[in-house]
């Protein structure tokens, strides 16, 4: 009984040391076509960068990987670079070349 509680407590500590961040990814224009969806939730390691998240996304959607050189990224409605660290609850947008007007 006491041993079980210790194990559970150790697991809690371990879980906290690699916190999971749940982030929402939104796809637009050609990126939405490549993904076949407009929004998807990912569980990543807290503090992982946009680049690391994109590697996971690109593995899911090979067509997306080809688009990488043309893409920009936004985090919480602002353009962000690939080194930006992500937190739980962030909204990431995959932004192909814009063409309004």
């Amino acid at each position, binding site marked *: 009984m006491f041993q079980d509680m210790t194990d559970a407590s150790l697991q809690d500590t371990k879980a906290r040391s690699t916190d999971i961040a749940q982030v929402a990814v939104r796809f637009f224009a050609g990126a939405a076509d490549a993904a076949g969806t407009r929004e998807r939730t990912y569980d990543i390691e807290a503090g992982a960068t946009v680049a690391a998240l994109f590697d996971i996304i690109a593995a899911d959607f090979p067509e997306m990987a080809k688009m990488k050189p043309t893409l920009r990224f*936004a985090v919480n409605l602002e353009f962000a670079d690939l080194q930006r660290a992500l937190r739980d609850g962030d909204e990431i947008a995959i932004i*192909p070349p814009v063409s309004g007007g």
Partner: protein
Amino acid sequence: MARLVKIVDGRIDTDEALDAVRSPGNGGLASFYGSTRDNSEGKRVHRLFYEAYEPMATIKMNEVADEIADQFGVQDLAMVHRIGEVPIGEVSVFVAAGSGHRAEAFAACRYAIDTLKETVPIWKKEFFDDEEVWVGEAPSSGAARDQSH
């Protein structure tokens, strides 16, 4: 001073936008209408479709308006972009600026449309006879093609 920044699904009310930039002190009102064109790179376009990342697009359009206030001293500015299906020959984007004199109003309009096209997350899809293409992206077929614009 008045600012009108909007994304609309349906016809743009250009009168409303122009009215927003009128004021007794504004001797110059300049406007720009972007209209959907029936051709692109020598091919016939049948219709166009626009999509926006709306909350971010609204923020970026307001940032453009802030820059215009800083750089040209123009406070009265309207920027309206239409999304969804837009038939050929209709207004897809409208910009208007009101200022004491015409030079600043013209400059503000020019800056607004040029910057909007570079920084605001809005996308345009052109429908041709044989394919549909997000402008500025490689064709969905993946075939190599010159995309110079």
